[in-house]
């Protein structure tokens, strides 16, 4: 196997190398165009570029995805086949370094990425175009993302809390989408995060990743902890590679850096240096940046807990908190101004060790243990058989998933036309009143304060407001009531039907048990 000598103008499997964008220690990145440019759009010249791959300039005429017999994951059969027409230019080609003496982990990481990238999809990964085999010239071609990676923003750190939280929430949403595809990234760091023009974060570089159901080449063949010194999670240092919460630790380190301008554990290069984080807590962000609000410190330190079970339990939960600062329950973590003692940090680690079972759950199992459950109750007429039945259902769901969070929702109808100032005060009172009723309703559930949140949504259309909430907060399971017998339904229409039809998650429609002989109205089944 003799790799080709690549220079600008070289053509590999139908891609022409235009310019080398980046030369790293592991791989080179080339901007490429399709040689047969007949039907392909002209290459768009993006400003910047940096080390980021992947670009988003989707034309409106993007062809529909090809029909697939396996719905998902769906590997695109394009290895070495050259032209691919689905992904528009600009494209980038990643070429691993294969010279004698090059880092062997470069090849391994490249193999892993070549295996996994075609199996991933969605807006939070660069779109895969094709790859070349080791027989001739190994490469991966993918979309090129415009702009700079998140690392470029670090020059401005410390960032204001709102900006850091917004960036962090977008990265968390991207991570949640990857975790839902049963992938753990294992190398989350600012230089591996790009953004689409639409604002969505995109994770790049899957060389250390692991996907359920696929061989873990890194675990088998790397004899040192796999990760980046500044961001690697403690369990990763101990070579445990199955926990999506490892990515949350790295996300915490990224957030810490955005908020303070410093890395929480420095950038150790030795295993001994890496192990220090098992017993040495970082300096709390507020000690470095007094402008960091307590809620943000709570979130960041909650990601950086040494014991994964003490961290936030899913990326969706972190995204949720970053977007709802007023819903963060502040604990002692929020006010800490000095680092935790070595003893208490190490204790967390020992707890983890003691609990680690021989058979460890898959990424998908872990994710299903930490769902976000939302219950939409209507307490406008006070509590009812229905709201009580909903509470029972919520209690059952929480009992099944120890890592679950419960979001209690209530919709206050507001007129479609804006309110005047006089009503505003009244509206505010109504809002507070609704919140009080909501908390009172939830009290018998006895949920720890950090696992439950309350939201009064003000909107003219209850179903639309609940749907917005569900979509925006990665809700996994929505519990609504069937307003079967209420006279209101005749006037206002069903709320549950559009939710069942449109919510992007499981929906349970609760109906109190009917007495035999009581008049029944048509409607959906009890649980769907």
């Amino acid at each position, binding site marked *: 196997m003799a790799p080709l000598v690549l220079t600008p103008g070289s053509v590999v499997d139908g891609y022409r190398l235009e310019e080398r964008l980046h030369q790293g220690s592991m791989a080179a990145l080339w901007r490429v165009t399709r040689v047969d440019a007949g039907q392909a759009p002209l290459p768009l010249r993006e400003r910047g570029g940096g080390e980021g791959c992947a670009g988003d300039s989707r034309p409106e005429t993007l062809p529909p995805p090809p029909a697939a*017999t*396996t719905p998902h*994951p769906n*590997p*695109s*059969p*394009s*290895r070495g*086949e050259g032209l691919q027409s689905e992904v528009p230019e600009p494209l980038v080609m990643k070429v691993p370094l294969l010279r004698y003496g090059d880092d062997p982990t470069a*090849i391994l990481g490249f*193999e892993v990425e*070549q*295996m996994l990238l*075609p*199996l991933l999809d969605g807006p939070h990964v660069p779109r895969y175009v094709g790859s070349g*085999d*080791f*027989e001739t010239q*190994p490469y991966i071609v993918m979309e090129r993302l415009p702009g700079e990676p998140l690392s470029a923003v670090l020059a401005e750190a410390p960032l204001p809390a709102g900006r850091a939280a917004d960036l962090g929430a977008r990265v968390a949403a991207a991570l949640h989408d990857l975790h839902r595809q049963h992938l753990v990234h294992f190398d989350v760091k600012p230089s591996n995060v790009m953004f689409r023009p639409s604002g969505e974060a995109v994770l790049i570089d899957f060389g250390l990743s692991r996907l*359920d*159901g*696929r*061989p873990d080449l890194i675990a*088998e*063949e790397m004899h040192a902890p796999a990760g980046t010194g500044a961001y690697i999670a403690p369990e990763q240092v101990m070579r445990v590679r199955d926990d999506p919460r490892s990515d949350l630790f790295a996300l915490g380190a990224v957030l810490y850096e955005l908020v303070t301008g410093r890395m929480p554990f420095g950038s150790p290069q030795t295993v001994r240096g890496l192990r220090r984080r098992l017993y040495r807590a970082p300096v709390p962000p507020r000690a470095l940046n007094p402008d960091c609000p307590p809620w943000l410190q709570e979130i960041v330190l909650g990601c950086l807990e040494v014991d994964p079970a003490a961290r936030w339990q899913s990326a969706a939960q972190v995204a949720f908190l970053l977007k709802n600062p007023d819903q963060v329950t502040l604990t002692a973590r929020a006010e800490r101004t000095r680092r935790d003692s070595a003893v208490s940090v190490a204790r967390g680690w020992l707890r983890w060790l003691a609990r680690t079972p021989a058979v460890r759950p898959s990424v998908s199992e872990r994710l299903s243990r930490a769902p976000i459950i939302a219950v939409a109750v209507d307490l406008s007429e006070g509590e009812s058989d229905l709201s009580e039945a909903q509470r029972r259902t919520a209690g059952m769901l929480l009992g099944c998933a120890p890592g679950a969070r419960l979001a209690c929702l209530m919709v206050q109808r507001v007129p479609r036309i804006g309110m005047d100032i006089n009503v505003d005060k009244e509206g505010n009172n109504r809002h507070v009143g609704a919140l009080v009723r909501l908390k009172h309703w939830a009290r018998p559930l006895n949920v720890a304060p950090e696992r439950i949140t309350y939201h009064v949504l003000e909107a003219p259309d209850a179903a639309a407001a609940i749907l917005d909430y569900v979509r925006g907060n990665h809700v996994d399971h929505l519990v609504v009531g069937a307003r079967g017998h209420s006279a209101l339904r005749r006037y206002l229409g069903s709320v549950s039907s559009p939710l069942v039809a449109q919510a992007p998650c499981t929906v349970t429609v609760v109906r109190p048990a009917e007495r035999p002989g009581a008049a029944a109205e048509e409607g959906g089944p009890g649980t769907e």
Partner: protein
Amino acid sequence: MRIALLADLHANREAVEACLAHAAQAGAQRCVFLGDLVGYGADPGWVVDAVMERVGRGDAAVFGNHDEAALLGPSERMSGDARASAEWTAAQLTGPQRAFLAGLPLSVEDGPCLYVHANAWDPGRWAYVRGTAEARRSLEATERRITLCGHVHQPALYQQAPGGPAIRFEPTSGAPVPLGGRRRWLAIPGSVGQPRDGNPAACCAVLDAAAGVLTFHRVPYDHETAADKVRRAGLPPRLAARLREGG
């Protein structure tokens, strides 16, 4: 081109029908039968006819140790149940069916793939690939990058980087695995007709040859009927129970 891989069919008509239907649904244009068409099960004639008909249309099949036992008599090493079923099977097969089995090759090479029943180093002596040492021995005995074999009834996937040891991986049903080009691979789809890992569903796999992606599958089938037929044929009752238990 998608290729369905069916190993160790073991005269189980219900399982073979289910796997062939599944393969068609998965878009497979071709089937390769990885040996042991007969033995243990109650429908040897039907299974041999089905494979014969498909081989006539361009599919491929290789010879297995139970096929040999049905023609030449059971080997010394076979268990009591296997011996009894080999003798029963021999009495069921017609002349053309026997001739078809006798004409099967020990291995077939096609592009990057080697198809063989037991192993690559000495296919006719039926040694098992039960672990990484045997997998490495087999991988190093062939020029082909991808070995597909049967004989062992539990699904397994082994891979080997250049000069490295073979590494075993437990496949997950329905999860496509790209067979990276720098490595050599040995895949055992598991048994169609007599699964032995505690799950009675039939095992098979589909290789997308163009993309180099292999997907293992578990296919549920009417194992109660297959087990009843084994019992009614007068074969050892243990062979019927195995189909119900998958073990």
